[in-house]
């Protein structure tokens, strides 16, 4: 399900609207993921706490959205653009790739919640495809 030119345009248009709130989106999405899918907390046992809206979560949400921003800028070749991040996730973080779609869902819930008029079904399908392709690019170096 690769990205058409129409998908890429829709993702960039949506991103233009939400980018300035990226940090808040990241923090909220991560908080929700940790609460709604408690098994994801296992990756963060080294944090002082995993509380929704806590400092660790906010800082990490910002970092994750930085990755999403990078992906938007490299939308024409995600595999090449996210190579370093893929190596990080494959060899150091070793996050089970099944979890990428859990975070993707939470990002979309937050966008629907914060931008109900912009997160139309058309924007939703383009972003869903984009996040799926992002996850695939991130999994590239796993094996």
């Amino acid at each position, binding site marked *: 399900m690769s990205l058409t030119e129409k998908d890429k345009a829709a993702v960039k248009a949506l991103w233009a609207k939400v980018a300035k709130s990226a940090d808040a989106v990241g923090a909220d999405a991560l908080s929700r993921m940790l609460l*709604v899918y408690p098994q994801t907390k296992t990756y963060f046992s080294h944090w002082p706490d995993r509380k*929704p809206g806590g400092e660790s979560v906010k800082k990490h949400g910002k970092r994750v959205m930085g990755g999403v921003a990078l992906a938007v800028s490299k939308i024409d070749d995600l595999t090449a653009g996210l190579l370093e991040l893929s190596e990080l996730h494959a060899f150091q973080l070793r996050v089970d790739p099944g979890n990428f779609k859990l975070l993707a869902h939470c990002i979309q819930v937050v966008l*629907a*919640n914060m931008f109900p008029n912009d997160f139309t079904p058309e924007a939703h399908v383009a972003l869903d495809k984009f996040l799926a392709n992002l996850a695939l690019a991130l999994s590239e170096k796993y094996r």
Partner: protein
Amino acid sequence: MVEWTEQERSIITSIFGNLDYNDVGPKALSRCLIVYPWTQRYFASFGNLYNAEAIKTNPNIAAHGTKATYAELSVLHSEKLHVDPDNFKLLADCLTIVIAAKMGSAFSPEVQATFQKFLAVVVSALGRQYH
């Protein structure tokens, strides 16, 4: 058996008590058909689903849905409708997104967790009578 706290029960009751089924239902279903187009395979008889606009204005989509017990609904979906149970999760995710858009700041992480737990139980119940 799934266990529910008093707080979870009250969150679910409150969400559904304030829900406009005639608005949220068609919105969630049409979003599912747009975001996951392969789900349209189950609605071939509904007429024009050719693009997002057609789906959103299709009267059959808007009218879709009846009430029954979960056992009956499960048998209906497996024996008569032949719906792949993976699709239930897709619709559940679209419903979560529509509710998130409607409820704004009231849709806190805790409320989302409770709502998704409820939908997971419904999805499981719908899948139970498949063989």
